[in-house]
C-alpha cells in the first residue's frame, strides 16, 4: 500500500439511507464551501440534478447534429444513386422521386441520431470507466455523497491543495450521513 506515490484519494464518502435524505443533504453541500462533490445512487433520483446544481446534459445536441447529418446523407445519397450514378427507369417514376425516398431519409436520421446518442452519452460519462466503484452497496440500496479534493492547479501542479478529510467527514456527519470514510481511486482489475 505504501508506495512512494500512494493510492490516489478519491474523496470522503458519506452514506444516506433514502433518496429524500440524500436530496436534502445534497442541497446543503451544493451551497457549502465544498465545491467539488458528486452523488452516487443505485437509480436516477428525481430532482437530484437540481439539488446538485448540474447544468442540463448536452447529449440532445449530439443527437440533433447527427440526426440531421443522417437526413442530409440520405437525401444526397438516394438522389445521387437514383438520378446520376445509376439512373434507372422503374415503373415510369421520375429519377428523383423524393416522396419515395422519405422512408429511408427518416430511418437514416433515426439510425444516425440513435447511434450518436449512445456514443455521446458514453463520451460525456467517460464510459467505459477504468476506476472501481467506491462501495458495492451503491448499485444496490445505499446513496452517497462524495466530497472530492479540489483538482490541482494546472499551472502549478506541485502546489499543495487545501483539503481536510477530517473537516469533510465531520461536515457530512453533520448532514446526517450514517457512515463516513475516505475512499481511494482503484482500477477495476487492479
Amino acid at each position, binding site marked *: 500500500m505504501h508506495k512512494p506515490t500512494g493510492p490516489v484519494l478519491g474523496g470522503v464518502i458519506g452514506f444516506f439511507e433514502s433518496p429524500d435524505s440524500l436530496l436534502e443533504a445534497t442541497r446543503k453541500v451544493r451551497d457549502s464551501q465544498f465545491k467539488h462533490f458528486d452523488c452516487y445512487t443505485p437509480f436516477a433520483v428525481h430532482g437530484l440534478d437540481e439539488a446538485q446544481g448540474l447544468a442540463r446534459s448536452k447529449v440532445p445536441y449530439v443527437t440533433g447534429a447527427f440526426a440531421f447529418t443522417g437526413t442530409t446523407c440520405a437525401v444526397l445519397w438516394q438522389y445521387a444513386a437514383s438520378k446520376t450514378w445509376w439512373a434507372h427507369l422503374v415503373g415510369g417514376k421520375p429519377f428523383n422521386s423524393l416522396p419515395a425516398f422519405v*422512408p429511408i431519409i427518416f430511418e437514416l436520421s433515426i439510425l444516425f441520431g*440513435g447511434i450518436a446518442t449512445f456514443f455521446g452519452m458514453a463520451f460525456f460519462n467517460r464510459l467505459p470507466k477504468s476506476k472501481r466503484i467506491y462501495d458495492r452497496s451503491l448499485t444496490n440500496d445505499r446513496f452517497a455523497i462524495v466530497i472530492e479534493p479540489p483538482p490541482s492547479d494546472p499551472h502549478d501542479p506541485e502546489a499543495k491543495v487545501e483539503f481536510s478529510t477530517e473537516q469533510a467527514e465531520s461536515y457530512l456527519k453533520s448532514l446526517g450521513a450514517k457512515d463516513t470514510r475516505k475512499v481511494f481511486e482503484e482500477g477495476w482489475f487492479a
Partner: protein
Amino acid sequence: MATADQPMNPLTGKIEDALVTAGRTYAEINEDVSRPIESFPTVRWWVCFGVAISALFMGAVLLLQTFKEGIGIWGLNRPTGWGTDITTFVFWVGIGHAGTLISAILFLFRQKWRTGINRAAEAMTIFAVMTAGLMVLSHTGRQWLALFWVFPYPNQRQLWTNFRSPLEWDVFAVSTYFTISTIFWYVGLIPDLASVRDRAVNKVRKFVYTVLSLGWRGSNKDWLHYEAAYLIFAGISTPLVLSVHSVVSFDFAVSQLPGWHTTIFPPYFVAGAIFSGFAMVNTLMILGREAFGLKHYITMDHLEKMNKIIMTTGMLVGYAYASEFFIAWYSGSAFERYIFINRAFGPYWWAYWIMVSCNVFIPQLFWFKKMRRSIPVMFVISLYVNIGMYFERYVIIVTSLHRDFVPSSWRFYQPTWVDWGIFVGFAGFFFTFFLLFLRFLPAIAMGEVKGVQDQPKAIGGSHA
C-alpha cells in the same frame, strides 16, 4: 389519503395498488431479480431450453436443406410467391412492436407500471426482430448473395439498389429498428449489469459483468447524461416503431394487388402489431412470473392493464377488417370486391374465420374484470391472439395471391411440412434466445423499479 402501499394516481386521483407489492426493500429487489442469474438453472428451465434448442436445431437442418435445394421445397409456386415465409416474417416483426411500445411510448406517457415488464418486453423485441430478419433473409432464394442485393454498397459498376421500392425501405426500417432497439435495451441494462457485478462472488462473473456494465459507478453526473440519452431513445423509438410496421405494410400496400392495395394498411398493421405483441408479452410474462417467482414485480395490475390494451387493439383490428370489406364494396372495383368475398367464403374461409374469432370475438371476454384478472383465462386468450394474428398475415398474403387476374393460373397454396418445420424452428430460435436472456441478464429493470417504488422505510415517504 394514499397510504404507503396504495399510491394515488396523480391524474385521476384514484387510489391504485402498489406497483411492487409486498413492500420490497431496495436490497430485496436486487436479491429477487438476481436470483435466477446466480443460481443453477432449474429443471423447468432446462426442459424449456431443451425443447427450444431442439426446435432450433430442426429449423437449422431444414433451412440448410432449403439453401441446398432452393425454396421450391416450400409450398411456393406461381401465383403464390409468398406464403408462410413472409407470414412468419410479419408475425415476428409485429411481435417486436409491443416491446418498444412498452419501453418507449409508455415511458413518454410516464406510465410507471411499465418498469416491471419493459426489460423482458424489449428483449422479446430484439429476439423477435432477429427471428424476422433471419426469416426474410432465408426466403430470398440465394441467401448467400442476399446481403449484396439488399444493402446498397459502393461498387465498381455503380449499381445501386432501387430506392423507390418498399422492399428496400423495409431493409432500412427493420435493420434500423433492430440496431436502435438493441442500443436502447443495452443502455437500460448498464446500471443493472453494474448491480449484478457488485453482487458477484464468482470471479468470472465479476469480470464479465464489469466489462458489460462499462464500469458504471452510479455517479449522478453520469445519471444526468444517462437519463437524457434514455429519454432521447424513447423519443426516437416512438416514431421509429410506428414507421417500421407502416413500412412493412407498404410491402403490400404499394403493390397493385387487390386485397393489398389499400390505404388503411399502415395504421391497421401497427394496431395489429401492438395487439399481437402484447399477447406475446402476456404469454411470456405469465410463464416468467410463475417460473421465476416475480409475482411482486409483474403484478395482476400489470397483466390487467395489458389485457385492456389487448382488447382495445383487438377492436381496432376488427374495425380494420370491417372497413376493408366496406371499401371493397364501396370502391366499385370488381377485383377488390371478389378478393374479399373470396377471403371470407372462398377456399381459405377457415383461415379467415380463425382470424376473426381469435382476434375480434375472443378478446371481448376482457370486458369483464374477472376475466381480465384471471391467469388461466388471459393465458389462453393470449395464445388465441397469437394464433389469430398469425392467420391474419396468412390470410392477407395467401388469399390475395392465390387467385390472380387470370383464372387459368389460380392455384390452391398449401405449405409443405418443410414450411411448418421452419416455422417451428424459428420459434425455437426465439425461445432459445429468450431463455438465455432470462438466465444471464436481469429480467426486470431493477434500477427503474426502485425509482418508481414507494420508498421502503423512507423518511418522508414520498413517491420518488
